[in-house]
């Protein structure tokens, strides 16, 4: 069985949050992109968990090859990490990221699957923490004409089907679909493993398969973006917080309840 995991490099969302909260998030001169060099780039956390999900399938005794693929400019760190975690193959599709929209990314990833020996299971993150879109996996599924199961907490596979535990707003749900299928992984999967020393050493020797859109049989037409980012800004949060203090927690508590009643927030 062949499992393809799609992994994207993103700006560390916690660092972005810290800068935004401090009012120091910098948008570059193009007015569109976050330029802060101090913000680390790392693998989208859900994608790390997607790799973990693949490794758990292998740990469960399923014979499989795990390939991790990333679309972007310089994905060396993301792929090295994937290899250190235990991926068997790593691949990067080199394109100018500024011209890659979700449609193009999905098309490239679907073409990679078709050109790299197919996939019985494609694992993605539920969404990328930079754009939060969560559309690429569904677009891959449609491009390949296969089912898409979102927001998985656990994935098991048999020779021809996937059994997935999904986290829905109403609670958990167990579903099944024939393979091949796309499954998106959510944080409820749990922590991804740390690469072992042996894994790191092996990763150093592993060569990434570097592919161009041309290698994947795609034409410039296929790469025409249809959504263009024209602007990015930090929305203002207007604070009007009144700090309550008092001699004791009990007093502050009753003060708060009184105010909420006066405001008619509480009866």
């Amino acid at each position, binding site marked *: 069985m062949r499992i393809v995991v799609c992994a994207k490099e993103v700006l560390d969302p916690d660092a972005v949050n810290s800068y935004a909260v401090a009012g120091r998030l910098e948008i570059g001169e193009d007015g569109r992109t976050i330029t802060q060099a101090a913000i680390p780039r790392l693998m989208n956390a859900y994608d790390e968990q997607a790799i973990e999900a693949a490794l758990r399938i292998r740990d469960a005794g399923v014979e499989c090859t795990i390939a991790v693929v990333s679309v972007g400019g310089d994905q060396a760190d993301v792929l090295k990490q994937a290899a250190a975690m235990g991926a068997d193959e790593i691949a990067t599709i080199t394109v100018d990221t500024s011209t890659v929209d*979700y449609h193009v990314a999905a098309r490239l990833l679907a073409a990679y699957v078709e050109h790299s020996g197919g996939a019985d299971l494609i694992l993605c993150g539920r969404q990328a923490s930079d754009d939060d879109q969560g559309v690429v996996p569904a677009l891959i599924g449609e491009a390949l004409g296969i089912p898409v199961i979102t927001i998985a907490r656990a994935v098991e596979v048999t020779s021809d089907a996937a059994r997935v535990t999904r986290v829905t707003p109403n609670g958990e749900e*167990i579903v099944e679909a024939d393979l091949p299928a796309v499954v998106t992984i959510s944080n409820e999967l749990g922590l991804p493993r740390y690469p072992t020393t042996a894994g790191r050493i092996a990763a150093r020797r592993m060569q990434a398969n570097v592919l161009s859109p041309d290698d994947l049989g795609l034409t410039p037409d296929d790469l025409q973006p249809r959504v263009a980012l024209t602007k990015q800004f930090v929305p203002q*949060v207007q604070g009007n917080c009144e700090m309550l203090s008092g001699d004791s927690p009990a007093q502050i508590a009753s003060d708060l*309840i009184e105010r909420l009643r006066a405001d008619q927030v509480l009866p």
Partner: protein
Amino acid sequence: MTIVACTFGDPTASGEVEELLTLARRLSESNASDLRWLVAGSAPRAAVEELAAAYGVATVDRIDDPKLEGAAPDASVEALAQYCASRPPATLLLSQTFDARLVAPRLAGRVNATVMMNAVDVENDVGTVRVTVSAYGGDTRAVYELTGDGPHVIGVMANATAPERSSGATPVINDVSVDLSRIEERIRIVERTPEQGPRLEDANIIVAGGRGLGSADKFHHVEDLAEALGGMAAASRPIVDDGWADPSRQIGLTGKVARPALYIAAGISGASQHMAGCSAAKTIVAINRDPDAPIFRYARYGIVGDCIELLTELTNAVKAR
């Protein structure tokens, strides 16, 4: 050119339809295009008529087919794809529910439409659809331009638009038939937890706890105050990940989006991804021992102190009356 607002099932089941119809109407008025409301799945006719009239929708298209019952992604995508083929909309807007988050991009892939999720605003500017979306969990807003004739499939975030009624004539309701006879859901449900009780999305009062509670055995302080106030208990993601609270309690970008009258956040830092699920609350009260915690930027009232102590005293104060 046509703007289609699309909802699934009973539109009165949630408040999102009013927001969607408001945004769709604004968009259609801004460039004098037709507005239609597509109701997929079984929905009470009277309720649909009433909402359409109240929000100025003159034409309602209904697709009712037994295969659309429950979350049926294959049938939903196919039904919408057939609809788009027979009367191509310029823009199709959907409320971004859990199920729509899958159906929207799949539909886009199926009919070769562009797709954009997390929209907080949509404008039409001489043939270019401009969508403002939330990114980085809400830390930034990104503006995208969608080119081509469409269709453009756009997922609209909850709480982004204030509902605004608009009087209209009695709506015309069309029954649109689609052929789903060949559709068999490829995803088989093996086990499903039945829908339980009240939804956080509808709660009027929410008390939420975060990592500041300290440990799993402290979550009951959140539940105690919620109960005393007649509200619901909720949680930030880390404490759900650590098993202190059930995933169905999670508020935020990847959890529930709520809009209570009162949101009490105890031991929650106020990361954008959390606030994405509660910043629409009318009154936010923040309890945090760090006076610089970002949550205070969103709060109406702030208390610097230990959240366990304060939750306990608040519960006492509420019960004392």
